[in-house]
């Protein structure tokens, strides 16, 4: 499976202003964006049940391909399901655990940041999020996309080198 033409990011934030901002930031960087205002809406979009951690209704290994989300970026402080709760749910899902999750927060609390990173968050951005933060996402996306495909036993193509050579190779890749 080759590189998608455009990466699709699911953005989650209860603040309308911040949703608009993150959407613009991502679109400026040529990502396709779906923005939702809560963790439960995010799970709904992915096709995961919102309740007690049961598996998704479509538990085929291709669920993430069908929904087509390459990265999830979520606010930490949200009413109901926090960004951390959402992170945990995603990582518990067999279909979606490989999708990188980035957490955003207006508060610089090291213990919070560490807990998110330890529990599988790819990165942690302090708000307000900058273009330079969004630019950091691309290598994560390319590498993860490649790893997901390899794990599914798809043929290696020239765009998925072995992990220890990933970084130098990907810097040269031209992604539209």
């Amino acid at each position: 499976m080759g590189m998608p033409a455009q990466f699709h990011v699911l953005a989650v934030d209860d603040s309308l202003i911040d949703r608009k901002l993150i959407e613009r930031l991502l679109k400026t960087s040529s990502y396709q964006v779906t923005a939702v205002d809560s963790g439960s809406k995010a799970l709904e979009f992915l096709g995961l049940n919102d309740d007690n951690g049961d598996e998704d209704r479509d538990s085929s290994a291709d669920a993430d391909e069908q929904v087509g989300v390459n990265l999830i970026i979520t606010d930490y402080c949200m009413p109901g399901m926090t960004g951390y709760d959402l992170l945990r749910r995603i990582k518990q899902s067999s279909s979606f655990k490989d999708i990188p999750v980035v957490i955003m927060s207006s508060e610089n609390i090291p213990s919070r940041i560490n807990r998110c990173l330890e529990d599988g968050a790819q990165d942690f951005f302090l708000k307000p999020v900058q273009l330079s933060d969004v630019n950091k996402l691309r290598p994560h996306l390319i590498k993860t996309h490649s790893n997901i495909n390899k794990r599914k036993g798809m043929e290696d193509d020239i765009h998925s080198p072995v992990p220890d050579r990933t970084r130098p190779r990907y810097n040269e890749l031209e992604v539209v």
Partner: protein
Amino acid sequence: MEVVQIQRRLVDYTKSLFMEGFLDGQFLQLQQLQDESNPDFVVEVVSLFFDDSEKLLNELTIALDQPNVDFKKVDGHVHQLKGSSSSIGAQRVKNVCIAFRNFCEVQNIEGCLTCLQQVKQEYYLVKNKLETLFRLEQQIVASGGSIPMIEMGF
């Protein structure tokens, strides 16, 4: 007034807002995200900020007027206001919110009331300034000119 003069006025006015601390670098970031495909991005986001803030200021006034103040609720509103002001670069509003949250944490009602007054003041000030800025921009565009990009030293 010639377009060049209005453009000059806009640049000077914008710079003064930064110098006086009304706006910070985040506002520049918003401007950088605006382009031909999204020509009204800044006005749209700032308008959302105005609507959101006025709602929050009302709720804060009501919440702090209760016989038994729910400080958690107050803090929740201030947190939201801090977030949105930070997102658009309204630095002075954001700074009052930081002090406000500290008073909420120790449940100091007098401190909270003072901060409410201050935050309202700062909000109306920055609203006024931004509306003036947008009016200048409109004048430039209406005269067929283009809005100058502000280059700041920081």
